[in-house]
Protein backbone atom coordinates (compact mmCIF):
# COMPACT_ATOMS: atom_id res chain seq x y z
CA UNK A 1 0.00 0.00 0.00
CA UNK A 2 0.99 3.61 -0.20
CA UNK A 3 0.01 7.04 1.06
CA UNK A 4 -1.64 9.77 -0.95
CA UNK A 5 0.93 12.34 0.09
CA UNK A 6 3.72 12.47 2.57
CA UNK A 7 2.10 9.90 4.81
CA UNK A 8 2.81 9.33 8.47
CA UNK A 9 6.25 9.78 10.00
CA UNK A 10 8.01 6.50 10.58
CA UNK A 11 5.44 4.25 8.87
CA UNK A 12 6.19 2.25 5.77
CA UNK A 13 2.96 0.78 4.38
CA UNK A 14 4.60 -1.46 1.80
CA UNK A 15 4.34 -4.69 3.78
CA UNK A 16 0.71 -4.31 4.98
CA UNK A 17 -1.04 -7.62 4.41
CA UNK A 18 -4.66 -6.42 4.75
CA UNK A 19 -6.96 -4.57 2.39
CA UNK A 20 -8.71 -1.26 2.85
CA UNK A 21 -12.15 -0.99 1.24
CA UNK A 22 -14.13 2.25 1.39
CA UNK A 23 -17.82 2.90 0.80
CA UNK A 24 -18.68 6.56 0.35
CA UNK A 25 -22.02 8.28 -0.06
CA UNK A 26 -24.44 10.68 1.61
CA UNK A 27 -26.66 9.81 4.58
CA UNK A 28 -29.50 7.77 3.11
CA UNK A 29 -27.40 6.43 0.26
CA UNK A 30 -27.54 2.95 1.78
CA UNK A 31 -23.91 3.00 2.88
CA UNK A 32 -24.36 1.40 6.27
CA UNK A 33 -26.64 -1.38 5.00
CA UNK A 34 -24.12 -2.19 2.31
CA UNK A 35 -21.25 -2.24 4.80
CA UNK A 36 -23.20 -4.72 6.97
CA UNK A 37 -23.97 -6.96 3.99
CA UNK A 38 -20.39 -6.82 2.80
CA UNK A 39 -19.12 -7.71 6.23
CA UNK A 40 -21.39 -10.75 6.43
CA UNK A 41 -20.22 -11.81 3.00
CA UNK A 42 -16.53 -11.42 3.82
CA UNK A 43 -16.80 -13.19 7.16
CA UNK A 44 -18.73 -16.03 5.56
CA UNK A 45 -15.74 -16.47 3.28
CA UNK A 46 -13.33 -16.48 6.20
CA UNK A 47 -11.98 -12.93 6.04
CA UNK A 48 -11.54 -11.04 9.30
CA UNK A 49 -12.97 -7.53 9.09
CA UNK A 50 -12.76 -4.29 11.06
CA UNK A 51 -15.25 -1.45 10.67
CA UNK A 52 -14.25 2.19 10.85
CA UNK A 53 -16.16 5.38 10.17
CA UNK A 54 -16.16 9.07 10.91
CA UNK A 55 -16.37 10.44 14.42
CA UNK A 56 -15.39 7.20 16.11
CA UNK A 57 -11.92 7.99 17.46
CA UNK A 58 -11.07 7.62 21.13
CA UNK A 59 -9.32 10.95 21.01
CA UNK A 60 -11.94 13.45 19.88
CA UNK A 61 -15.24 11.71 19.01
CA UNK A 62 -16.99 12.94 22.19
CA UNK A 63 -15.90 16.49 21.58
CA UNK A 64 -16.99 16.31 17.94
CA UNK A 65 -20.41 15.00 18.91
CA UNK A 66 -20.80 17.86 21.38
CA UNK A 67 -19.72 20.39 18.80
CA UNK A 68 -22.17 18.95 16.28
CA UNK A 69 -25.10 19.78 18.56
CA UNK A 70 -24.35 23.48 18.53
CA UNK A 71 -22.77 25.41 15.71
CA UNK A 72 -19.82 26.45 17.84
CA UNK A 73 -16.79 25.64 15.71
CA UNK A 74 -15.49 27.87 12.97
CA UNK A 75 -14.77 26.40 9.57
CA UNK A 76 -11.05 25.66 9.76
CA UNK A 77 -11.39 24.44 13.34
CA UNK A 78 -14.09 21.96 12.35
CA UNK A 79 -12.03 20.71 9.38
CA UNK A 80 -9.03 20.13 11.62
CA UNK A 81 -11.10 18.47 14.32
CA UNK A 82 -12.36 15.95 11.79
CA UNK A 83 -8.85 15.48 10.42
CA UNK A 84 -7.65 14.73 13.97
CA UNK A 85 -10.44 12.18 14.39
CA UNK A 86 -9.45 10.59 11.10
CA UNK A 87 -5.72 10.52 11.89
CA UNK A 88 -6.36 8.94 15.29
CA UNK A 89 -8.38 6.12 13.74
CA UNK A 90 -5.90 5.72 10.91
CA UNK A 91 -2.98 5.24 13.27
CA UNK A 92 -4.68 3.33 16.04
CA UNK A 93 -7.22 1.18 14.22
CA UNK A 94 -6.80 1.09 10.45
CA UNK A 95 -3.03 0.59 10.27
CA UNK A 96 -2.77 -2.03 13.05
CA UNK A 97 -5.62 -3.98 11.40
CA UNK A 98 -4.02 -3.79 7.97
CA UNK A 99 -0.72 -4.96 9.41
CA UNK A 100 -2.49 -7.93 10.94
CA UNK A 101 -4.07 -8.87 7.62
CA UNK A 102 -7.66 -7.71 8.20
CA UNK A 103 -10.03 -6.36 5.60
CA UNK A 104 -10.82 -2.86 6.87
CA UNK A 105 -14.28 -1.63 5.84
CA UNK A 106 -14.50 2.15 6.03
CA UNK A 107 -17.96 3.67 6.23
CA UNK A 108 -16.83 6.97 4.65
CA UNK A 109 -13.22 8.05 4.37
CA UNK A 110 -11.34 11.25 3.58
CA UNK A 111 -13.42 12.06 0.48
CA UNK A 112 -16.56 13.02 2.44
CA UNK A 113 -14.41 15.17 4.70
CA UNK A 114 -12.67 16.82 1.77
CA UNK A 115 -15.91 17.46 -0.13
CA UNK A 116 -17.53 19.03 2.93
CA UNK A 117 -14.53 21.28 3.52
CA UNK A 118 -14.27 22.35 -0.10
CA UNK A 119 -17.95 23.26 -0.53
CA UNK A 120 -17.50 25.38 2.61
CA UNK A 121 -14.71 27.31 0.97
CA UNK A 122 -11.55 25.51 2.10
CA UNK A 123 -8.57 25.76 -0.22
CA UNK A 124 -8.28 22.59 -2.36
CA UNK A 125 -4.51 22.42 -2.09
CA UNK A 126 -4.70 22.80 1.66
CA UNK A 127 -7.21 19.98 2.03
CA UNK A 128 -5.27 17.70 -0.30
CA UNK A 129 -2.03 18.15 1.61
CA UNK A 130 -3.80 17.78 4.97
CA UNK A 131 -5.12 14.36 3.92
CA UNK A 132 -1.82 13.36 2.35
CA UNK A 133 -1.47 11.32 5.55
CA UNK A 134 -4.18 8.92 4.30
CA UNK A 135 -3.54 5.47 2.85
CA UNK A 136 -4.69 4.82 -0.71
CA UNK A 137 -7.49 2.23 -0.41
CA UNK A 138 -7.59 -0.90 -2.54
CA UNK A 139 -11.15 -0.02 -3.58
CA UNK A 140 -13.38 3.04 -3.17
CA UNK A 141 -17.04 2.69 -4.06
CA UNK A 142 -19.17 5.80 -4.18
CA UNK A 143 -22.89 5.24 -3.86
CA UNK A 144 -24.43 7.94 -5.96
CA UNK A 145 -28.07 8.65 -5.19
CA UNK A 146 -30.07 11.52 -6.62
CA UNK A 147 -30.85 14.28 -4.09
CA UNK A 148 -34.59 13.67 -4.53
CA UNK A 149 -34.15 10.00 -3.58
CA UNK A 150 -31.94 10.98 -0.64
CA UNK A 151 -34.66 13.24 0.76
CA UNK A 152 -37.19 10.44 0.51
CA UNK A 153 -34.93 7.94 2.26
CA UNK A 154 -33.95 10.39 4.99
CA UNK A 155 -37.59 11.15 5.68
CA UNK A 156 -38.46 7.47 5.83
CA UNK A 157 -35.68 6.92 8.37
CA UNK A 158 -35.75 10.00 10.59
CA UNK A 159 -38.78 12.09 9.67
CA UNK A 160 -36.55 15.16 9.80
CA UNK A 161 -33.60 16.25 7.72
CA UNK A 162 -30.29 16.54 9.54
CA UNK A 163 -28.99 20.10 9.94
CA UNK A 164 -25.48 19.23 8.71
CA UNK A 165 -26.53 16.89 5.91
CA UNK A 166 -28.73 19.74 4.69
CA UNK A 167 -25.71 22.06 4.82
CA UNK A 168 -27.76 24.60 6.80
CA UNK A 169 -24.55 26.22 8.10
CA UNK A 170 -23.75 27.38 4.57
CA UNK A 171 -26.77 29.66 4.37
CA UNK A 172 -27.79 28.37 0.94
CA UNK A 173 -31.45 28.71 1.89
CA UNK A 174 -33.41 29.17 5.09
CA UNK A 175 -35.71 26.42 3.92
CA UNK A 176 -34.19 23.10 5.03
CA UNK A 177 -35.65 21.09 2.14
CA UNK A 178 -34.33 23.53 -0.42
CA UNK A 179 -30.97 23.72 1.35
CA UNK A 180 -30.68 19.92 1.49
CA UNK A 181 -31.18 19.54 -2.27
CA UNK A 182 -28.74 22.31 -3.10
CA UNK A 183 -26.12 21.14 -0.63
CA UNK A 184 -26.25 17.51 -1.78
CA UNK A 185 -25.85 18.66 -5.39
CA UNK A 186 -22.73 20.63 -4.42
CA UNK A 187 -21.30 17.61 -2.60
CA UNK A 188 -22.03 15.30 -5.56
CA UNK A 189 -20.34 17.70 -7.92
CA UNK A 190 -17.28 17.66 -5.69
CA UNK A 191 -17.30 13.85 -5.56
CA UNK A 192 -17.41 13.63 -9.33
CA UNK A 193 -14.47 16.01 -9.57
CA UNK A 194 -12.54 13.88 -7.09
CA UNK A 195 -13.50 10.69 -8.93
CA UNK A 196 -10.93 11.32 -11.63
CA UNK A 197 -8.15 12.22 -9.25
CA UNK A 198 -8.77 9.47 -6.72
CA UNK A 199 -10.18 6.77 -8.99
CA UNK A 200 -13.52 5.91 -7.37
CA UNK A 201 -15.88 3.32 -8.64
CA UNK A 202 -19.24 5.08 -8.94
CA UNK A 203 -22.15 2.83 -8.10
CA UNK A 204 -25.68 3.78 -9.04
CA UNK A 205 -27.39 3.85 -5.66
CA UNK A 206 -30.91 4.47 -6.98
CA UNK A 207 -31.48 0.70 -7.12
CA UNK A 208 -32.59 -2.03 -4.71
CA UNK A 209 -30.33 -2.99 -1.79
CA UNK A 210 -29.96 -6.46 -3.27
CA UNK A 211 -28.76 -5.43 -6.71
CA UNK A 212 -26.30 -2.89 -5.26
CA UNK A 213 -24.97 -5.56 -2.88
CA UNK A 214 -24.41 -7.91 -5.82
CA UNK A 215 -22.40 -5.31 -7.66
CA UNK A 216 -20.30 -4.52 -4.58
CA UNK A 217 -19.65 -8.22 -3.99
CA UNK A 218 -18.51 -8.75 -7.53
CA UNK A 219 -16.05 -5.89 -7.26
CA UNK A 220 -14.73 -7.04 -3.90
CA UNK A 221 -14.39 -10.62 -5.11
CA UNK A 222 -12.30 -9.41 -8.01
CA UNK A 223 -10.11 -7.54 -5.59
CA UNK A 224 -9.58 -10.37 -3.14
CA UNK A 225 -9.41 -13.06 -5.82
CA UNK A 226 -11.79 -15.34 -4.00
Amino acid at each position, binding site marked *: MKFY*GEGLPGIDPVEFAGKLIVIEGADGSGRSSQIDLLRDFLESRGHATVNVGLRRST*LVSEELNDAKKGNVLSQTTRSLFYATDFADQLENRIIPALRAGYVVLADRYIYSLMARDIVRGA*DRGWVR*SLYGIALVPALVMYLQVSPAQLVERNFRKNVILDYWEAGMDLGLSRDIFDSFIRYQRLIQKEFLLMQKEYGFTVINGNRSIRSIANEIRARVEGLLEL
Partner: protein
Amino acid sequence: MNARATTELPGRLIAVEGLDGSGKSTQLHLLQRWFELRGLKVFATEWNSSVIVKSATSKGKKRQLLTATTFSLIHCTDFADRYERQILPLLKAGYLVLCDRYIYTAFARDAVRGCSHSWLRNLYGFARRPDLTFFFNTPLTIALDRILSGRPQLKYHEAGMDLGLAHDPYESFRLFQERIYREYLAMQDEFGFVTIDGANTIEEQQALVRKLVGEAFDLPSYRWKIGT
Protein backbone atom coordinates in the same frame (compact mmCIF):
# COMPACT_ATOMS: atom_id res chain seq x y z
CA MET B 1 -0.04 30.25 2.31
CA ASN B 2 -3.72 30.62 1.38
CA ALA B 3 -4.65 33.80 -0.48
CA ARG B 4 -7.07 34.75 2.28
CA ALA B 5 -4.20 34.98 4.77
CA THR B 6 -2.47 37.82 2.95
CA THR B 7 -5.19 40.50 2.65
CA GLU B 8 -4.44 43.74 4.47
CA LEU B 9 -6.19 44.14 7.83
CA PRO B 10 -6.28 47.20 10.10
CA GLY B 11 -4.78 45.41 13.13
CA ARG B 12 -1.23 44.21 13.62
CA LEU B 13 0.06 40.84 14.75
CA ILE B 14 3.17 40.52 16.90
CA ALA B 15 4.49 37.10 17.89
CA VAL B 16 7.23 36.04 20.27
CA GLU B 17 9.02 32.74 19.87
CA GLY B 18 11.80 30.97 21.71
CA LEU B 19 12.55 28.09 24.02
CA ASP B 20 10.91 27.53 27.38
CA GLY B 21 12.94 29.68 29.74
CA SER B 22 14.06 32.07 26.99
CA GLY B 23 12.32 34.98 28.70
CA LYS B 24 9.88 35.59 25.85
CA SER B 25 6.73 35.64 27.99
CA THR B 26 8.24 38.22 30.33
CA GLN B 27 9.13 40.41 27.37
CA LEU B 28 5.68 40.04 25.83
CA HIS B 29 4.04 40.95 29.13
CA LEU B 30 6.13 44.11 29.37
CA LEU B 31 5.23 45.02 25.81
CA GLN B 32 1.55 44.49 26.60
CA ARG B 33 1.84 46.74 29.68
CA TRP B 34 3.52 49.43 27.60
CA PHE B 35 0.66 49.37 25.07
CA GLU B 36 -2.00 49.38 27.78
CA LEU B 37 -0.44 52.30 29.60
CA ARG B 38 -0.34 54.25 26.35
CA GLY B 39 -4.05 53.58 25.83
CA LEU B 40 -3.68 51.31 22.82
CA LYS B 41 -6.05 48.56 21.75
CA VAL B 42 -4.12 45.44 22.70
CA PHE B 43 -4.96 41.78 23.20
CA ALA B 44 -2.60 39.01 24.28
CA THR B 45 -3.14 35.33 23.62
CA GLU B 46 -1.24 32.19 24.54
CA TRP B 47 -0.53 28.95 22.74
CA ASN B 48 -2.74 26.08 23.76
CA SER B 49 -5.55 27.94 25.48
CA SER B 50 -8.72 27.31 23.50
CA VAL B 51 -11.62 26.15 25.67
CA ILE B 52 -13.37 23.99 23.09
CA VAL B 53 -10.42 21.83 22.25
CA LYS B 54 -8.97 21.67 25.74
CA SER B 55 -10.70 18.52 26.94
CA ALA B 56 -9.56 16.52 23.91
CA THR B 57 -6.01 17.81 24.18
CA SER B 58 -5.67 17.01 27.86
CA LYS B 59 -7.33 13.60 27.45
CA GLY B 60 -4.92 12.75 24.63
CA LYS B 61 -1.94 13.83 26.65
CA LYS B 62 -3.00 12.15 29.86
CA ARG B 63 -3.70 8.81 28.25
CA GLN B 64 -0.69 9.14 25.95
CA LEU B 65 -2.92 8.54 22.95
CA LEU B 66 -1.08 10.97 20.74
CA THR B 67 1.24 10.22 17.87
CA ALA B 68 3.35 12.85 16.08
CA THR B 69 0.53 13.42 13.59
CA THR B 70 -2.38 13.58 16.01
CA PHE B 71 -0.33 15.70 18.41
CA SER B 72 0.25 18.11 15.58
CA LEU B 73 -3.36 18.07 14.36
CA ILE B 74 -4.93 18.59 17.76
CA HIS B 75 -2.70 21.55 18.51
CA CYS B 76 -3.46 22.97 15.10
CA THR B 77 -7.19 22.54 15.80
CA ASP B 78 -6.73 24.40 19.06
CA PHE B 79 -4.82 27.13 17.31
CA ALA B 80 -7.44 27.38 14.53
CA ASP B 81 -10.18 27.85 17.12
CA ARG B 82 -8.30 30.73 18.73
CA TYR B 83 -7.32 32.10 15.35
CA GLU B 84 -10.82 32.16 13.88
CA ARG B 85 -12.63 33.30 17.00
CA GLN B 86 -10.12 35.72 18.54
CA ILE B 87 -7.03 36.62 16.57
CA LEU B 88 -8.64 37.26 13.18
CA PRO B 89 -11.69 39.22 14.43
CA LEU B 90 -9.41 41.36 16.63
CA LEU B 91 -7.12 42.10 13.70
CA LYS B 92 -10.19 43.13 11.70
CA ALA B 93 -11.19 45.39 14.59
CA GLY B 94 -7.81 47.13 14.49
CA TYR B 95 -6.16 45.61 17.56
CA LEU B 96 -2.51 45.03 18.28
CA VAL B 97 -2.61 41.28 18.86
CA LEU B 98 0.26 39.79 20.85
CA CYS B 99 0.86 36.07 20.55
CA ASP B 100 2.97 34.21 23.06
CA ARG B 101 4.13 31.51 20.62
CA TYR B 102 2.67 31.24 17.17
CA ILE B 103 2.83 28.79 14.26
CA TYR B 104 6.63 28.59 14.45
CA THR B 105 6.34 26.78 17.78
CA ALA B 106 4.45 24.05 15.95
CA PHE B 107 6.90 24.09 13.05
CA ALA B 108 9.81 23.53 15.44
CA ARG B 109 8.24 21.10 17.88
CA ASP B 110 6.28 18.96 15.43
CA ALA B 111 9.26 18.72 13.08
CA VAL B 112 11.34 17.39 15.97
CA ARG B 113 8.61 14.77 16.50
CA GLY B 114 8.97 13.70 12.87
CA CYS B 115 6.30 15.61 10.91
CA SER B 116 7.52 16.85 7.54
CA HIS B 117 8.36 20.53 7.12
CA SER B 118 6.23 20.96 4.01
CA TRP B 119 3.18 19.23 5.53
CA LEU B 120 3.38 21.50 8.58
CA ARG B 121 3.71 24.67 6.52
CA ASN B 122 0.65 23.71 4.52
CA LEU B 123 -1.29 22.69 7.64
CA TYR B 124 -0.90 26.19 9.09
CA GLY B 125 -1.36 27.83 5.68
CA PHE B 126 -4.65 29.41 6.80
CA ALA B 127 -2.85 31.57 9.37
CA ARG B 128 -1.46 34.95 8.37
CA ARG B 129 2.19 35.64 9.03
CA PRO B 130 2.87 38.03 11.91
CA ASP B 131 3.80 41.61 11.06
CA LEU B 132 6.66 41.20 13.48
CA THR B 133 8.12 38.03 14.99
CA PHE B 134 10.63 38.31 17.80
CA PHE B 135 12.84 35.30 18.38
CA PHE B 136 14.41 35.30 21.82
CA ASN B 137 17.69 33.64 21.20
CA THR B 138 18.76 32.63 24.67
CA PRO B 139 21.73 30.28 24.95
CA LEU B 140 20.48 26.75 25.47
CA THR B 141 22.30 26.28 28.78
CA ILE B 142 20.73 29.45 30.25
CA ALA B 143 17.21 28.51 29.12
CA LEU B 144 17.60 24.97 30.43
CA ASP B 145 18.98 26.20 33.71
CA ARG B 146 16.03 28.56 34.24
CA ILE B 147 13.58 25.72 33.77
CA LEU B 148 15.45 22.86 35.42
CA SER B 149 17.10 24.56 38.40
CA GLY B 150 13.89 24.30 40.41
CA ARG B 151 13.65 20.57 39.59
CA PRO B 152 10.08 21.02 38.34
CA GLN B 153 7.65 18.18 37.66
CA LEU B 154 7.97 17.97 33.88
CA LYS B 155 4.94 16.72 32.00
CA TYR B 156 5.35 13.76 29.67
CA HIS B 157 5.04 15.65 26.37
CA GLU B 158 6.69 18.77 27.73
CA ALA B 159 9.79 16.71 28.41
CA GLY B 160 9.52 15.12 24.97
CA MET B 161 9.32 11.69 26.60
CA ASP B 162 7.26 10.43 23.65
CA LEU B 163 10.37 10.72 21.46
CA GLY B 164 12.20 8.11 23.49
CA LEU B 165 15.39 10.18 23.66
CA ALA B 166 16.19 9.30 27.26
CA HIS B 167 14.64 7.54 30.25
CA ASP B 168 15.30 10.41 32.62
CA PRO B 169 12.74 13.22 32.08
CA TYR B 170 15.35 15.94 32.70
CA GLU B 171 17.78 14.46 30.25
CA SER B 172 14.97 13.95 27.74
CA PHE B 173 13.93 17.59 28.18
CA ARG B 174 17.50 18.75 27.50
CA LEU B 175 17.81 16.72 24.32
CA PHE B 176 14.32 17.74 23.17
CA GLN B 177 14.97 21.46 23.74
CA GLU B 178 18.29 21.23 21.95
CA ARG B 179 16.57 19.85 18.86
CA ILE B 180 13.86 22.51 19.02
CA TYR B 181 16.54 25.18 19.35
CA ARG B 182 18.18 23.93 16.16
CA GLU B 183 14.83 24.09 14.34
CA TYR B 184 14.35 27.69 15.49
CA LEU B 185 17.80 28.71 14.30
CA ALA B 186 17.10 27.18 10.90
CA MET B 187 13.85 29.16 10.58
CA GLN B 188 15.30 32.59 11.39
CA ASP B 189 15.92 33.64 7.81
CA GLU B 190 13.05 31.78 6.16
CA PHE B 191 10.47 33.67 8.21
CA GLY B 192 12.35 36.90 8.86
CA PHE B 193 12.54 36.60 12.64
CA VAL B 194 13.82 39.64 14.50
CA THR B 195 16.33 38.02 16.81
CA ILE B 196 16.77 39.40 20.31
CA ASP B 197 19.81 38.36 22.30
CA GLY B 198 18.36 36.66 25.34
CA ALA B 199 21.66 36.87 27.20
CA ASN B 200 21.12 40.63 27.74
CA THR B 201 19.25 42.03 30.75
CA ILE B 202 15.47 42.16 30.81
CA GLU B 203 15.59 45.97 30.60
CA GLU B 204 17.97 46.00 27.64
CA GLN B 205 15.87 43.50 25.75
CA GLN B 206 12.63 45.35 26.44
CA ALA B 207 14.11 48.69 25.39
CA LEU B 208 15.12 47.17 22.06
CA VAL B 209 11.73 45.47 21.58
CA ARG B 210 9.89 48.75 22.24
CA LYS B 211 12.18 50.65 19.91
CA LEU B 212 11.65 48.16 17.07
CA VAL B 213 7.89 48.05 17.58
CA GLY B 214 7.73 51.85 17.64
CA GLU B 215 9.62 52.00 14.34
CA ALA B 216 7.55 49.30 12.67
CA PHE B 217 4.07 50.62 13.48
CA ASP B 218 2.30 53.96 13.76
CA LEU B 219 1.34 53.28 17.38
CA PRO B 220 -0.87 56.35 18.04
CA SER B 221 -3.27 55.12 15.35
CA TYR B 222 -4.11 52.10 17.56
CA ARG B 223 -5.54 54.27 20.37
CA TRP B 224 -9.09 53.74 21.53
CA LYS B 225 -11.35 55.99 19.48
CA ILE B 226 -14.16 56.19 22.03
CA GLY B 227 -13.90 58.67 24.92
CA THR B 228 -12.57 57.42 28.22
